[in-house]
């Protein structure tokens, strides 16, 4: 499962000029869920987007205003602001497959779409 999408995405990115991924992780304080989410995100990015991603962690407890701008409701939320279109993923990112689908790194499985 894991290898195939990897190959796919590699093929895509190889063909096009290198696309930089901009990811934002919204958390609310240092909660266990946000720590888990950050760890999961880091791992996935290292696996799939090595070298062409930046992760910005936004703590809404410190900057609550930003919650409105990105329409954040659930915590944690991962927002892919680049490449377009914007994608949103909620939860602690423990379901890797769903994260990959959400990030558009693999096509959505027919059954659950």
């Amino acid at each position, binding site marked *: 499962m894991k290898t195939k999408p990897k190959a796919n995405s590699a093929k895509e990115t190889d063909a096009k000029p290198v696309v930089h991924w901009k990811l934002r992780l919204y958390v609310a304080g240092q909660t266990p869920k946000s720590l888990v989410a950050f760890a999961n995100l880091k791992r996935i990015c290292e696996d799939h987007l090595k070298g062409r991603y930046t992760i910005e962690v936004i703590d809404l407890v410190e900057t609550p205003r930003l919650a409105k701008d990105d329409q954040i409701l659930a915590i944690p939320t991962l927002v892919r602001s680049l490449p377009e279109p914007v*994608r949103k993923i909620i939860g*602690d990112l423990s379901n890797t497959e769903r994260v990959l689908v959400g990030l558009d790194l693999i096509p959505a499985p027919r059954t659950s779409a």
Partner: protein
Amino acid sequence: MKHNEPKNVTRKPRRRPSLPKAPTGIQGLDELTGGGLPQGRPTLLCGSAGCGKTLLAMEFLVRGALDYGEPGVFVAFEENTEELAKNFASLGHDLKALVAQKKLALEFVHIERSELEETGAYDLEGLFIRLGHAIDSIGAKRVVLDTVETLFSGLSNAAILRAELRRLFRWLKEKGVTAIITGERGEKSLTRYGLEEYVADCVIMLDHRVDGQMATRRLRIVKYRGSTHGTSEYPFLIDEGGISILPITSMGLTSEAGTERVSSGVPRLDAMMGSRGYYRGSSVLVSGTAGTGKTSLAAHFAQGTVARGERCLWFAFEESSSQIIRNMRSIGIDLEPAVRRGTLRFHAERPTMFGLEMHLVTIHKLVNEFKPRVVIIDPVTDFTAIGSEAEIMAMLTRLIDFFKMQQITALFTGLTVVGALSEGTDVGVSSLMDTWLLLRDVQNGAERNRVLHLLKSRGMAHSNQIREFLLTDHGVELRDVYVGPSGVLLAGSARDALEAQEKALTLVRGQEIEGKNRELDRKRQAMEAQIAVLRAEFEVEQVEAAKTIGQDQTRAGVLVGDRIQMARLRQSDAGTTGKTRRHK
């Protein structure tokens, strides 16, 4: 709008302020809830689509911000802030200005399942943060969540959602904000997702029902923990002025009965009621068959009211205001100046425009707005088209009670059907009325004439006589009627004929009397002549008698003289001479 509050608070004697309440500022709702929503607690507002949940909730915030100095946060899950501002601009609320003044915060929460990928455990802390931030940024005391159920369609993990909602409501309570949470009506439960489970303090249900093609919005307070409240369904109205609810059944027979009188506008009619007219605050029914002059009588009353400098509100259910003005001009009543001055207002509307309750709400609203001393409802029987008799009775009872509370004199006209019993109206409302005037057609020969009966007038001496009711070019005129030989009422030309007949008869009688007088005179003269003759005869006799008496006396004297003379001549004895002389 809030003038009604003190009046109705007296209805519920509240020994101690059991529960702090946040006034909604919505007409009627504060009366129903005894002062507002539970302060610092969430209230669930549920109802089907399009029944006015969002509007009521927004009204709560706007009123709070403007009238009670309590800023509010509106969290919209369905409309974005632009749409909200647009929708409420049409209702006269400038949300953007309120936002600029920091009296209101609009928070649009967008949630779309297809755009969200759920990848594990999460919570709704983001919503809490946003809400908390919005509340803190303007110091909000009121919060509306409209409608939080959207979350259920946006997020798939119901278990998380329910836990988070429970936390949210607890959190709102801790924050001390008065909140309204709206919810869609469910099939079996109050809300589709059972929000009532979490919000237990106060539940208000809105309903939009269609009865006989007439849609009416209604409000019901399902539950209000720790407070008394009205329990019935109350109709409410949404218009450019916002929401108004009518807690009509809360009224009782507690109105003050004054002794002040108001003129009916027709002097002769006033005369029939002890020269003073109706009681102020009483209800008057003018019933009659078609074309008997009910509206004209109402116009007189209206004219008299504005002439006193009081306001008059006229609900016309059959004619437009210009039609009434034109028609009344034909009998010499010009209502237009009063309309222009603003002391007389017409509200013309077909009864079938909306349901009974709605009419009631409209009447309430207009009366509260215009504050008239006199209200005319012309005709009240048109409501039969939109309700059963029982419903109309109930509505009129409420209406009359309402007018009485406000000391408004109300005149209702009622159409009776020709051929139906003359003393009933289509609606059996007469028992509710204080004064009942009945206009009837009387048929004589080949014409119909109008007559007026004063069937009842509570609490005053009133004439029991029937009057002929004339519509002249200078208004209504009441005249005495004639009762014909066989006890038939005579009016119109028949009366005129009879009048002429009577005049002739009087003339003849006059002549007869004159003749008799002359006869008497003659007799007196004859008698006096006789007396004169008798007197003359008597006088003659008297003279004769006197003469005879004189002669007799002389004769007697002569006789005595003769006897003495003879005695002296005989010289019978000397002694008797002196005696005789002395005697003489």
